[in-house]
């Protein structure tokens, strides 16, 4: 190049914020005091942007007394295809998250109603669904079926996990088949979609809730925005595939702020769940 590119200092570099104290909103750019943000359930007070939170935070937020009787926490991914670097990536995500895989499930109560609660975690391989995620989701559905209590699955996922190849694709069939059996027993399933829920997970259990609730501003769909833009050769509007868009297109029942999520779920369960749990 014949000219020297001027390197402009980006504002965040100039500010040099201590990130343990301050957080910048991804959407409106507002600088927020971390403690305040946490108190506000990680919702930007200025623009209502919902920061991504992990499954443990959701447990505290949604379950009565934050009580969660976790099941099958020990299940770990294998490396069935001996896929390059897979084992290494799993190990590093396990250390990072202190979880064995990208989903937890267990027994809990919401508004006094016993439920099976299943929550995915985006920090672990982008919430991608391999064999263990599929298996734990399937087991959680069976648990709801056996105990005859409602099922809540909170999803966040980039889709099927490539490193387990075809086995990951089959988890779509596996989980959907279990939901078909649950539906035959008239046990309610509430699907909660958080940012983002796409591809293989969106095209299986996440879309099969009797009631589907999305957090505001979540990116939801089958194909990711970038690939669609490549396919059709044009830019998509910013609201494309966001929760409001999905509501307008009839794909979700409700868009509910994180602050009202627990209340909304328990209100719904009180109306639609009139069974009684199976006795031991």
């Amino acid at each position, binding site marked *: 190049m014949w000219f020297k590119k001027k390197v402009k200092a980006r504002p965040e570099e100039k500010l040099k914020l201590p990130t343990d104290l301050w957080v910048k909103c991804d959407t409106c750019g507002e600088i927020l005091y971390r403690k305040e943000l946490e108190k506000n359930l990680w919702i930007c007070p200025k623009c209502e942007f919902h920061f991504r939170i992990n499954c443990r935070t959701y447990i505290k937020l949604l379950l009565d007394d934050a009580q969660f009787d976790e099941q099958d926490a*020990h*299940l*770990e*991914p*294998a*490396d*069935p*295809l001996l*896929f*390059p670097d897979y084992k290494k990536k799993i190990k590093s995500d396990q250390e990072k998250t202190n979880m064995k895989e990208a989903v937890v499930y267990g027994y809990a109560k919401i508004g006094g109603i016993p439920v099976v609660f299943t929550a995915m975690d985006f920090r672990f391989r982008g919430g991608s669904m*391999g*064999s*263990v995620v*599929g*298996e734990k989701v*399937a087991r959680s559905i069976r648990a709801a079926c056996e105990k005859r209590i409602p099922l809540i699955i909170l999803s966040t996922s980039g889709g*099927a*996990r*490539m490193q*387990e*190849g*075809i*086995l*990951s*694709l*089959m*988890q*779509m*069939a*596996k989980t*959907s*088949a*279990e*939901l*078909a*059996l649950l*539906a*035959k027993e008239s046990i309610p399933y509430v699907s909660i979609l958080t940012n983002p829920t796409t*591809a*293989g997970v*969106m*095209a*299986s*259990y*996440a*879309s*099969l809730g009797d009631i589907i609730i999305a957090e505001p501003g979540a990116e939801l*769909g*089958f*194909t990711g925005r970038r*690939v*669609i833009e490549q*396919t*059709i050769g044009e830019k*998509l509007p910013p609201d*494309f*595939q966001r929760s409001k868009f999905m509501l307008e*297109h*009839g*794909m979700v029942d409700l868009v509910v702020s994180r602050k009202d999520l627990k209340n909304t779920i328990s209100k719904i369960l009180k109306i639609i769940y009139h069974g009684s749990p199976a006795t031991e």
Partner: protein
Amino acid sequence: MNGIWLDFERPIVELERKIEELKGLQGVEEEIQRLKTQAEKLKKRIYSNLNRWQHVQLARHPRRPYPLDLLPLMTQDFVELHGDRRFGDDPAVVAGIATIDGHRIAIVAQQKGRDTKEKIRRNFGMPHPEGFRKALRIMKMAAKFSLPVVTMIDTPGAYPGADAEERGQSEAIATNLFECATLPVPILVIILGEGASGGAIAIGLGDRVLMCENSFYSVISPEGCASILWRDSSKNKEAAEALKITAQDLKTLGIIDDIIPEPVGGAHMDFKLTAQNVKKAIIQTLDELSSEPQEELLTRRVEKFRKMGAVNE
């Protein structure tokens, strides 16, 4: 013998062309024989050592037979049925009813196009939600009239476009999986060519899953995998190897039940023989499935998919 051939097919095609040319001449019988032996040897060497990417190439071969090529060679009374009764008729999905050797069946298949115009009309075999919903409509009708369902998979994937999203691509695929799990008639799934991702599994839940010898079945296309994992879509060969996507791989992994043999060199070498092999597999499988009581059939179907996956307890 004009037209498109793959790189590794060319030496064989050239040899065979030479043989054809010599055929009209006198006193070259010995030469012809020699070339024929050479061609056989070459074929054996090439086709017994295909790598995974070459299988992908054969599965996508521009000459590969599509469902509408094979169906007339398998049945005389195929009636194509159109539309999802909700939005439109997706030409990427062909559905209908037919009898095959006494078996009354419903057929749901993905159809690419042969020439450019047809390719565009059929969207290269990439269904929109209305295609999956048409498939489901026909499958539900099949259940109503106790017709077993045969699905034929040949798709690069569900269409990744904005309109498909607006009309609920995810919902359409998920609902098909949900409904097929308990559809009260036998479902036979055949992967004919490309079995790529959600677009394939959307008509891929059944009692038996068979793959044609050179087809592939994968969670993502090798190119897609390479570009996401290694940010380099030219690493498609490496991705095909890593993903393990051939019929033999899937048999070993316990995902499919059986492999339908193809003519030497691939299905495109002989449509008739391919149709015969597919037909034989359909009849044999439906004979087996139709003798199973419905309740057992459905229990086993869910069990089949329940077992899939690799988990360390």
